[in-house]
């Protein structure tokens, strides 16, 4: 048992480290290091612009999507090499945020279901950040129940005509292409009538509207489709097989979103170490110590769980199901930690931003953003279902709409 690289891994790490040292935008290092939660905002630069420059440089150096085959813009790297690269890329990895959906979800789906021509045309530009992709799955009527989606695609000659609405689309406003799941047959049960496409986001009839979120920010969009035309050649998988195609995408979603998880623990530990209360330092208080200790072992438990997965990759094995716990643990932790930090501040904990004097509103921001961490990329409840069913082997839910034609499924709980 050890934490050491194999000689090959050490050599690879050395190469990666030297390249990052020679090429990374060091002027952004401190700012990137201090932002730990949610979307990255840079004071004097646009994240998409800076991100594109970094991604292009990486592509030229052979470090973009490095686990992809060379002919599609990658490096043909092994899974463990990808992990080592992520470790060495460090804080600069945050610059790749605009590309993560494309890299983690859209790319693998095109790779699995696209034609050879598609792969050669789209994947290298996706990898190099020249073209950005978004994922158009969630709808107002279908979040956790993705298969309940209603956006229609109707065939007209060699084209498909799209009408409907998507929601929670990150980066739709700066994306060039989108991966779109639609309903092509409402007369069959819901999982059977779906079909996957990709489309040019600048197609006529596509309208992107930002969503103002509960935390006051705007990071996601609604996307409306009015008679949008998609050629049949941009279909991924068979007509009616969209559900299976989407499983490829979503499987990759949970892998990629779990990669860099903020828990809030380093922040609360530092906060309690320095916060003077009427009874002395917060960290000397019994109740506070108990909470800190519980969070500490969750944070270390997640860290060493990921080390176990990395060890499996290093041996050329598939990681076990342990990694599925990450987001479930981290999301609740963020919310609890934020609440506790503000409790320690007392009445002044109500203040936000620069008006909050201890940490300039760090925990208040965490409080307002943390609900999304428990929803995006699979709600806590869906993640528990996945653990229960796929890891523990418990039965799936009884699905009352399973054998019912989609257009006969009730649409409201109370009428």
């Amino acid at each position, binding site marked *: 048992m050890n934490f050491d690289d194999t000689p090959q891994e050490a050599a690879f790490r050395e190469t990666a480290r030297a390249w990052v040292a020679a090429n990374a935008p060091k002027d952004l290092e401190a700012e990137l290091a201090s932002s730990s939660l949610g979307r990255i905002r840079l004071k004097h630069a646009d994240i998409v612009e800076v991100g594109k420059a970094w991604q292009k440089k990486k592509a030229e150096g052979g470090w973009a999507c490095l686990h992809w085959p060379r002919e599609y813009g990658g490096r043909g790297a092994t899974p463990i090499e990808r992990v080592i690269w992520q470790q060495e890329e460090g804080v600069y990895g945050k610059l790749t945020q605009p590309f993560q959906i494309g890299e983690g979800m859209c790319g693998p789906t095109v790779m699995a279901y696209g034609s050879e021509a598609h792969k050669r045309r789209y994947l290298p530009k996706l990898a190099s950040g020249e073209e950005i992709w978004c994922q158009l799955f969630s709808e107002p009527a279908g979040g956790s129940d993705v298969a309940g989606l209603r956006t229609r695609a109707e065939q007209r000659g060699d084209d498909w005509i799209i009408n409907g609405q998507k929601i929670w689309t990150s980066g739709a406003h700066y994306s060039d292409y989108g991966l779109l799941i639609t309903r092509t047959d409402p007369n069959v049960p819901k999982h059977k009538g779906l079909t996957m496409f990709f489309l040019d986001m600048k197609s006529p009839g596509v309208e992107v509207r930002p969503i103002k979120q509960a935390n006051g920010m705007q990071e996601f969009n609604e996307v409306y489709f009015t008679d949008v035309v998609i050629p049949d050649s941009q279909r991924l998988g068979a007509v009616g097989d969209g559900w299976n195609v989407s499983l490829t995408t979503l499987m990759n979603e949970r892998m990629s979103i779990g990669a860099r998880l903020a828990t809030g623990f380093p922040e609360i530990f530092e906060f309690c*170490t320095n916060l003077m209360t009427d009874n002395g330092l917060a960290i000397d208080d019994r109740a506070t110590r108990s909470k800190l200790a519980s969070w500490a*072992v969750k944070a270390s*438990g997640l860290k*060493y*769980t990921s080390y176990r997965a990395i060890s499996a990759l290093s041996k050329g094995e598939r990681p076990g199901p342990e990694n599925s716990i990450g987001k479930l*643990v981290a999301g609740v932790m963020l919310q609890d930690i934020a609440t506790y930090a503000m409790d320690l501040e007392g009445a002044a904990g109500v203040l936000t931003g620069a008006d909050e004097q201890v940490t300039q509103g760090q925990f208040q921001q965490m409080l307002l953003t943390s609900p999304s961490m428990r929803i995006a990329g699979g709600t806590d409840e869906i993640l528990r*279902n996945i653990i229960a069913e796929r890891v*523990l082997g418990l039965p799936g839910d009884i699905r009352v709409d399973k054998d019912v034609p989609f257009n006969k499924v009730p649409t409201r709980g109370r009428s």
Partner: protein
Amino acid sequence: MNFDFSDDQKQLRDQARKFLAEKCPPKAVRVVLDGQAPYDRALWKGFAEMGFLGVAIPEEYGGAGAGHLELCVIAEEVGRALAPVPFSSTVYLAAEVLMLAGSDAQKQAWLPKIASGEAIGTFALFEGTGNPSPKAIRLDAANGVLNGVKTPVADGAIADLIIVAARTASTGRDSDISLFLVDAKAGGVDAKALTNLDPTRGQAELTFKTCKAEPLGAPGEGWSIITQVLDRAAVLTAFEQVGGSDRALEMGRDYALDRIAFGRPIGSFQAVKHMLADMYVSATLARSNAYYGAWALSTNAPELPEAAASSRISATQAYQHCAKNNIQVHGGMGFTWEFDCHMYYRRANALALGLGSLSYWEDQLIDRMRKRNAA
């Protein structure tokens, strides 16, 4: 990175699991639970024959000289099977103290007997209510003669070798504490068995009356040795707790698959599924923390104190969580004596206290993290 047990170590774990499945089924545990024997003598003999007792003891002292990673995988199986033998007192505590601080003569005298199963050992630390602290040790050791009472002492009524924490000065410093070695058969110590939460592992009150004792380790070094030994035992116990957590989770899962209510397996209800998923999360965090502890223990890393506290807290939380929710999944049947759920519940809550309770280890962890951050 190779943050995992080796194939040989995993093989040893499988071997231990098979052995325990055969020799230590729940009905064997119940013989001790029901008070028909103080511990399972045949199983203890089997442990010696399998080499489990001396796996981490050097060959020159009669052991296998394998190491602590090997001991960790055995501990996991001991915990999973609820083995009713004095394994933790003898191996994690008495043998560890001897290996850390014993003279060569003391090691020669006792370690081979531990490895062969001839001697049961224990560590007499506590004196009534409270957590480990030099202040709490009052048992007097003037001129190497012990006078005082230790309680509770795990496996105290069946121990041949007793390591005793005693007071040799009263300056208010840690150096007031020294360790002593007592041969229980030599007289001067009376044992009284006590009733306890988990009857599959006995507890006793030991009364020392002008009891002759040998010093163990340098005088005044007692507290320093105690903290090191508690850290080592915390990691090893964490593996017992991880084994128990996994078994409690499996029992809950199996019952949820078999039990039908409202016309469907109860494992198809989300309320039950989510409870089991949360148990899996706790058990996984505990296992990963315990692996970190195992790494620190086996390499004698400077991180050991922090890793030990993390292992201890995470494993204690996970086992308590899994054991209580296993009963909940079983419903009324889980509250019967006949079902095994309560044996895990008892063991989980007894192990949570034995080396100092959760609040003690939380304090230790935070102190140790602060020290590292300040450095």
